[in-house]
């Protein structure tokens, strides 16, 4: 499915960054809408927040935190690559970004359950 010229670590890092960014951007309106309920309909906000007790929602939250963390660490790698002195270890750094994102989102998940 993945075309041969794309099948290498830094391209995967790119697509992860793009898809996580896209996912976060699409999530933002829902996130904002839900919070603004605090102003207009506080009862229904609590109704939504109660949904977070559902295990499936907890997994979805973990997914969102992972997207945020992986976009954060991946973005730091890109800015370091562009603006700091060159490092030839981009593949290791990209792997490190994913590992750090799992660490952060895993911590969140353990606190959530």
């Amino acid at each position, binding site marked *: 499915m993945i*075309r*041969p*010229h*794309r099948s*290498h670590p*830094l*391209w995967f890092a*790119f697509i992860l*960054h*793009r898809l996580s960014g896209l996912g976060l951007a699409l999530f933002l309106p829902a996130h904002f809408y839900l919070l603004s309920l605090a102003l207009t309909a506080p009862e229904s906000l609590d109704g939504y927040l109660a949904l977070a007790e559902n295990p499936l929602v907890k997994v979805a939250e973990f997914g969102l935190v992972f997207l945020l963390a992986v976009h954060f660490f991946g973005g730091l790698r*890109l800015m370091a*690559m*562009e*603006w700091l002195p*060159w490092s030839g270890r*981009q593949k290791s750094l990209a792997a490190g970004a994913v590992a750090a994102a799992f660490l952060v989102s895993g911590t969140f998940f353990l606190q959530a359950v």
Partner: protein
Amino acid sequence: MSSDKEELEVSIWRGDDAGGAFEDYKVPAQDSQTVLDVVSWVQQNTDPTLSYRYACRVGMCGSCAMMVNGVPRWTCRTHVKKVLDGKKVTVAPLRNLPVIKDLATDMDPFFDKWVKAGGVHHPSKTRDDPIEPINPKSIARSEADTGIECINCSVCYAACDTVTGNADYLGPAALQRAWTLYNDAKDADQQTILDAVSGNGGCHNCHSQGSCTLFCPNELNPMKAIAGLKRATATSLFKRKK
């Protein structure tokens, strides 16, 4: 060692700018056979109308690059044994360039972008001036040296998905050329180069997928060169504001 009777199953893309499809050929396997040898054998023995491009056959001229099993390669220096999938190999024209016929692509857009990226020398002296001594160990010269072995084969350009999605994007080779000139002490107009790579299709569109660097047959690093241009354009922006 392969015996003379062994045959390769070769799929070659045939067509023109209107479209085309892969056609299958049987080619006898030989020792030390390159992908270009395979394509040439088909043209010389099976179908003389097969169009492709090559010149030096020793990895210097940059004219024989093609997609081999979906990956851009210099075909004259690619041993077919190294890329065989069982007995099969597919050969197609380079991505991201218009096809003229079969395996020959129109390289004009690729070279036009070299000029657009400021890739022409801006002289700092006339013929009457003495030759300026350059310290080969200076930081800028060492940086320029990393890019000068480019043979304009367009492998990086074909590997780059940013080129695919953004027709204006100058691409790795042209930007690396700009970076080389930017670091060349004998180039008189660094700001012109930075301006040329800061437009709509400039270095800032690069997403650092790194396919250019991965597939460059001369093991150059266009991704690093483009990162250098991003850094240089960003710092020049702050310098100019002061």
